[in-house]
């Protein structure tokens, strides 16, 4: 069984929900990322989404745009990030790691080269925001053959027919984008999310993670009542932005937010 599936199965047995933090790899410095991954796990993270920076992050708001710019200022490459995951795996063999980003930095490596290198580094899943299932027909079997889950997005605008298609195309979990907008947008509407998650559950078998608009323990708790996983990104990356000049403070600040979310979600 793959790590992501095992993770959701274990959590379901414990009647808990997955806490899934997102940070951009190499932000604000390459050396920060691996220790931060370990500290996020200590603070209660179940799965880590590691952002692969891209020069043109079309689906991201200003917070993650700036994170990409900081990471790219010292040329954080996809190969650097695979190296980070490999180092992380030396002492953590269980926490799933998902690379999240855009297609072009993956495509430039070549699908085969990327998938085998990612698998070897210990990556578990790949989420490419500008790659809908219709365009993934070539890359998906390659990811699959390398044991990598392809995680696809479902949006508030996704039709029922498409939810079915996405549910069949993806593996690991589905990422429900809770609002129309870019990352770090306004707060989500919990009732709306609850009703959409129920619809998705009826149409797709995969666990459902919800992201976009989760900012604090309260919203994390509310979403954890209806979804299988809670993704938090911009709220954490904000802390990296705030402490970019004193990176020693980053892990503590992010750890505090995650611990509070963890406690609220488990209560």
């Amino acid at each position, binding site marked *: 069984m793959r790590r992501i599936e095992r993770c959701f199965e274990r959590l379901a047995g414990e009647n808990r929900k997955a806490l899934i933090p997102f940070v951009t790899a190499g932000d604000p410095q390459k050396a920060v990322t691996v220790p931060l991954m370990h500290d996020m796990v200590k603070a209660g993270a179940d799965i880590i989404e590691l952002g692969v920076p*891209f*020069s*043109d*992050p*079309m*689906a*991201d*708001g*200003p917070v993650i*745009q700036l994170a990409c*710019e900081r990471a*790219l200022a010292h*040329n954080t*490459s*996809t*190969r650097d990030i695979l190296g980070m995951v490999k180092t992380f795996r030396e002492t953590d063999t269980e926490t799933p790691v998902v690379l999240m980003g*855009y*297609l*072009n*930095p*993956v*495509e*430039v*490596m070549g699908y085969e080269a990327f998938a085998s290198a990612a698998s070897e580094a210990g990556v578990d899943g790949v989420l490419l*925001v*500008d*790659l*809908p299932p*219709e*365009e993934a027909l070539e890359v998906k079997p390659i990811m699959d053959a390398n044991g990598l889950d392809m995680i*696809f*997005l*479902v*949006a*508030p*605008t*996704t*039709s029922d027919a*498409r939810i079915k298609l*996405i549910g069949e195309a993806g593996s690991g979990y589905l990422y429900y*984008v809770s609002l*129309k*907008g*870019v990352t770090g*947008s306004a707060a989500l509407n919990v009732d709306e999310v609850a009703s959409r998650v129920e619809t998705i559950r009826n149409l797709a078998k995969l666990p459902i993670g919800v992201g976009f608009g989760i900012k604090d323990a309260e919203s994390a708790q509310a979403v954890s009542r209806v979804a299988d996983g809670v993704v938090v990104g911009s709220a954490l990356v904000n802390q990296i932005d705030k402490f970019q000049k004193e990176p020693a403070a980053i892990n503590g600040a992010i750890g505090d937010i995650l611990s509070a979310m963890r406690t609220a979600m488990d209560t």
Partner: protein
Amino acid sequence: MSERPDFSAFPDASGHFGPYGGCFVSETLMGALDELKAMYERLKDDPQFRADFDYDLAHYVGRPSPLYLAERWSKQVGGANIWLKREDLNHTGAHKVNNTIGQALLAKHMGKPRVIAETGAGQHGVATATVAARLGLKCQVYMGAEDVERQKLNVYRMKLLGAEVIPVTSGSKTLKDAMNEAMRDWVTNVDDTFYIIGTVAGPHPYPQLVRDFQCIIGREAREQSLKQAGQLPDALVACVGGGSNAIGLFHPFLNDDGVAMYGVEAAGDGIETGRHAAPLSAGRPGVLHGNRTYLMEDDNGQIIETHSVSAGLDYPGVGPEHSWLKDVGRVQYVAADDQEALAAFRELTRVEGIMPALESSHALAYAKKLAATMSPEQNIVVNLSGRGDKDILTVADIDGIKF
């Protein structure tokens, strides 16, 4: 080229031109693109829609635009006859309005009260603001902060037309960043907003529908050539940034085997310097802004900054159909640098009394070289895609003149 494909049959049903094109966007936009595709499929052959479009082109844009024989310049160059397709004479001064008229009609049919656009030189922004004013649509235009600075006149024109111009300060602060920001706006306001993309790039169906609206250029040029020159042209030349004026001219001739075609990219300081905007000449295929196409990128797949004296060509990608036409060998893609374009700008202005846009000047610069290798019985049609009034400040600046 072994077997020539039937160029009119592309894109295929999934929006691809061979390996290029497609629909690479975040899930939130897939529904809106499906809706647009369905609406366009329904309307594109609808007689009433065609009639409305043709009416606006005739009475609002002022079409057909003339095909003008640049006799004096041709003689001076000494070779083929150079004909200019006068898109500069369109309302708003460039070919861009052909497309905004079409897309605004689609927006009206879809009941969207708000339109957004990205713009580089400001020509597409002006053309969008213009049709928005006429139809009473709310209009916001995203423009790179650097372009806002170098195209002040067009910025003010858009404001006078009632549009709001939003300077984009992320990334390289030029056209690609404006397009990122317009995509972000669209994903946020997808219910009430129509995104009027200005070139033959972006996710399917944009490369197709923008091409179809711009094909009026080539259809007219074909008919005018037969009537005025008595034959089809031997060669077509057009500048290529995103490539909408070029595809508009080329497409109706693609199945005419005897017509050679040249797309001219911006070589900026020179291809060899790396400071240019010529993905077809010196880039490689990748995925950006919703489609797979030739891009300017580094070894890590990051998009690199482009350089051109003309803001409208300062874009690291190109329409996917051009990528395909390059690979199958139907169109030759070449480049002209800043100096060559500026020289052509000055030459046409002085010899023919026609001041071309700096974008179109790239096409003129190459046409001049090409014509010199041809004979006086031969004919070249150059797409004079826009007029140069908007570039006067840029050229004055280069001449060291301050107003």
